[in-house]
């Protein structure tokens, strides 16, 4: 087990290093300069060249890469060109915002998705299940940004029940107490988390239903029923555990989404998270910020895959992680 874990960790480090190298090279080779002024403002090539000299961007790429790796090893991610502050500071602000949003969405996704999946499997071939099935199919086929725009229009613009964007109300937030601040943040979280969560839940429900329907035909379920167990117990205890494996795989695959999956929703709801930060950094040719975002994303993918394997083993005693 330990050897297996060590090997997986070494592979993860290798993956992250490969991603860093590739991202560093690609972003530096992309046309343009980090020092382009805002839209529709005059560009001064001489000023841009002066800044490039100041920041060492006129050196050969291998030299720049070696220097970058040197500072990375010391835990220094560099300074953001576009934000004029340490990259670590920009990430430290954005990552928690994204985690709150995507974490809430994932919880909603799996809680609602699994519950709906159970309902659909338990009521298979009934009218109510058919209706719910169509509704989940509808949500599953919706692009998240479109659903976000619609929810925004209905709940913020027309009904004015919920805020239209941001993570806090900048007018009242400074004067609120601790509980008020938490409440204000939750208030702003509802729409973006619901948008992401609902679309995800629709997909999860369909996976869960399919997995449960397959398990419900198994011999052990027939045995459980023959022993006189109540249908609820058969479904929730015997069938569900066995039907969770595909959903756990799905969960593992969804973990990278915690940091990278909300770019469009962050844009629609002005949510200052990592996705939006990374996209802006790419367009601004903010090399240090782009590479740091890639490090985080690749580390999350590698970590997510590892966690999925471990969860899989925990859920199914037949599967054992092995050092061989």
């Amino acid at each position, binding site marked *: 087990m330990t050897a297996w874990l060590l090997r997986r960790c070494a592979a993860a480090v290798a993956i992250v290093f490969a991603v860093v190298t590739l991202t560093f090279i690609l972003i530096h080779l992309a046309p*343009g300069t980090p020092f382009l002024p805002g839209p529709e403002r005059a560009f001064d090539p001489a000023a841009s060249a002066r800044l490039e000299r100041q920041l060492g961007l006129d050196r050969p790429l291998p030299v720049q890469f070696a220097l970058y790796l040197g500072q990375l090893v010391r835990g220094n991610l560099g300074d953001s060109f576009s934000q004029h502050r340490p990259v670590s500071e920009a990430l430290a602000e954005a990552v928690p915002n994204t985690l709150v949003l995507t974490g809430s969405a994932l919880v909603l996704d799996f809680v609602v998705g699994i519950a709906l999946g159970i309902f659909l499997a338990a009521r298979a071939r009934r009218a109510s299940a058919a209706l719910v099935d169509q509704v989940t199919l509808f949500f599953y086929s919706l692009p998240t940004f479109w659903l976000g725009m619609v929810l925004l229009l209905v709940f913020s613009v027309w009904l004015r029940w919920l805020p239209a964007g941001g993570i806090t109300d900048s007018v009242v937030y400074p004067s609120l107490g601790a509980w008020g601040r938490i409440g204000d943040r939750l208030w702003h979280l509802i729409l973006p988390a619901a948008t992401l969560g609902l679309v995800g839940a629709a997909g999860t429900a369909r996976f869960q239903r399919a997995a449960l329907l397959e398990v419900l035909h198994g011999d052990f379920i027939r045995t459980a029923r023959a022993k006189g167990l109540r249908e609820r117990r058969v479904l929730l205890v015997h069938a569900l555990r066995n039907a969770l494996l595909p959903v756990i795989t799905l969960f593992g695959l969804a973990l990278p989404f915690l940091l990278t999956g909300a770019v469009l929703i962050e844009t*629609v709801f002005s949510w200052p998270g990592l996705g939006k930060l990374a996209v802006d950094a790419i367009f601004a040719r903010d090399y240090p910020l782009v590479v740091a975002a890639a490090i985080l994303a690749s580390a999350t993918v590698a970590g997510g895959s590892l966690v999925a394997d471990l969860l899989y083993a925990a859920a199914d005693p037949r599967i054992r992680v092995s050092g061989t």
Partner: protein
Amino acid sequence: MHQRVSTAVCAALAAVLALIAVGGCERRPSCTGDYCGTLVFITGNNPDILNPAVSDNTGASDVEQQLFLKLADVGLSGNTIGDQDFVPELAQRWEWEGPRSIIFHLDPRAHWHDGRAVTAGDVEFSFDAYADTVVNSPARESLRRIASVRSRDSLTVVFTFSEHYPEMFYDAVYHMQILPRHLLAEVPRTEWRSSAFGRNPVGDGPYRFVSWTPNQSVELAADSTFFLGRPHIRRLIWHFAANLQVAVTQLVADQADALEYLGPPQFIQQAQKAPQLTLYPYKGSNYGYLGFNLRANGDTTRPHPIFGDRSVRRAITMGVDRAKLLLSVFGTHAKVPPGPMPQFWSIWDSTIRTLPYDPAAAAGLLAAHGWRMGPDSIRVKDGQKLSFHILAVTTSNVRQQYARLLQESLRPLGVDVQIDALEQNALQQRLAAGKYDAVLEAWQASPTPSSGITQLWTSHGATNYSRYANPEFENLVTRATSGTTTRDAASRLWRGAMDLLNADAPGIWLFAPDNVAAIHKRVADVQIRPDSWWALVRHWRIPADRLIDRDRAGR
């Protein structure tokens, strides 16, 4: 077991709902009277840093405008020639000392928000910093004709110029917001872009800095001791949206009070339907055009096989119905410019001679110069097809629309147009390297044509990507921007220059939008200066009987 789980879930949900209710309901009304008011601006432009010497985006300059003063500022007339239309700020008065020196007398009441007086030393220090290549200020180039700035005493400072020209005063006051020497002198200039000052600035303007949450909001508070009069509105908050569409949605949802530029017609219509908003049209400060590359694509030593020929450029220009295109994209919210100029420039004159829309004459001109219609309905001359690529930035819907409309407009003339959509950075590199045929460009202009026209259309201009060069045109521009030219004489010279430029047709001038701002109807005394939307906010007010919860809440 299941019951316990259900109970726990219900309890957790109830707790979350209670917290949300607390967040939604907890309000602490605290302000009444004439000097209350909170104004929330929504913008898609996130500031990079709040130090006017180094910042280079409109998000930052909107905020800096309230924090830092200039010596004087452009008046509502927008006149930049001479000094008569300028409004005093830090300088109480000024006088000329010979043709090349201006003496500014600072207002003794002016002070920094930390209590220190603003002195002539601050002005001298600011000029030194703005002109320093290490600081690399975006305003540096505009200050090149100021030879020196010297303080004569603590409240008197003398600007000396290397030459006499009509916009000396404008150059002395407009580009520089004065910085506090006592806070910045010790900061190494190589570190100004990341210094703590830029994140927590101390200014001398009508509003003082309160907080900045990057990518979310900036808050300023009125300086009740501001020497030019206490601002009526107590708090200014900038809220940053991801883009213009999101900004308009938040404005219409009543989560913000003001947006300086609504952009395309659909957003204007959206704002018109919001009962809480009043729309304020004002002259636009940007314009757009199709610029031709007069040198060969990728080889600046040879003329472009199509656009190197003045007659072809003229024919293509005459083949485009610019008024029709404008109506398709902007409706009635823009004008066809009579040259490369925004509406707010004083040289805007609809009687300037422009090439007419005349497709028959355009076809005749092309045929007369050997461009015959080929079997595929594309004109050909000596084996060369009349076909070119237009670069258009992906982030501008307006320019993408124009690219497609131009493609369709020129097809009947036998001109084949291909569209290359590129992101801004890649596009900029292609322009600088001359690797393009034509480009859809748009510019946000300063209040005067002097720098913009020189930069874009003269042979020594850093951004003359068309590689246009006409000595006669340049002579007129030089005369309009130098010597002892009066405003009327300068206007005549500019007009002559524009006539020449239009005749040479290095580009097709497509649009000059009317800007429309949307501001909450409770705000009174709203005035907007086209070059600097929120410059006059300190004069705006929210009458006591129109205050809403947003105005009373807060610190």
